[in-house]
């Protein structure tokens, strides 16, 4: 006749049963962390630069060119950062807005002002998202 299991053995058996449940949050969290890339200071700086340039722009060809270059730089920089799919979509859309302004040969003052306003508010929203990424 076998002896009844000791208290330690019973506890070990109980813990072994719990292991799969302990693994669930670990696997889930590692999955979640894969979805969101980490904070990147250069990415944040580029978004901030676009926002600031839109704030101080005088609508000259030179100043719209400067914004265009920054937007293109941000687009290229973000493109191959790991786990950055969501940010890439945002940055590509911002580039589209800036590109439209740059390609127009002689934009009117009212159009340029409205356009810069859109760029500024959009860049600010992207900045909030970029800045709140996990460090």
């Amino acid at each position, binding site marked *: 006749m076998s002896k009844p299991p000791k208290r330690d053995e019973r506890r070990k058996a109980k813990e072994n049963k719990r292991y799969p449940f302990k693994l669930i949050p670990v696997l889930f969290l590692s999955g979640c962390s894969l*979805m969101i890339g980490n904070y990147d200071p250069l990415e944040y700086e580029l978004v901030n630069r676009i926002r600031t340039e839109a704030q101080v722009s005088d609508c000259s060809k030179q100043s719209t060119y400067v914004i265009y270059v920054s937007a293109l730089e941000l687009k290229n920089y973000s493109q191959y950062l790991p786990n950055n799919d969501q940010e890439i979509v945002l940055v590509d859309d911002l580039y589209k807005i800036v590109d439209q302004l740059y390609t127009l040969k002689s934009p009117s003052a009212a159009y340029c002002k*409205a356009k810069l306003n859109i760029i500024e508010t959009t860049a600010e929203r992207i900045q909030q998202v970029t800045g709140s990424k996990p460090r």
Partner: protein
Amino acid sequence: MNISDLYKEAKSYKMMLENQSIDQYEFKDLIESLKIADQIKENADEFSKNQEIRDYLMTLYNLVSAISSL
């Protein structure tokens, strides 16, 4: 931007068009930009929501780890 903000913006662009301070092409482009900006806002909101969930789960995980180590 919410719907009323978008409407206000679009209305101001229409006024600019009527005052001839912008032309037809610029008007179309501004409306297009507004649409893209709204899309960016929606995507950014979604992104923020995902980050909030992640932060919440991380806190929960830390709490569970702390309790199980007792």
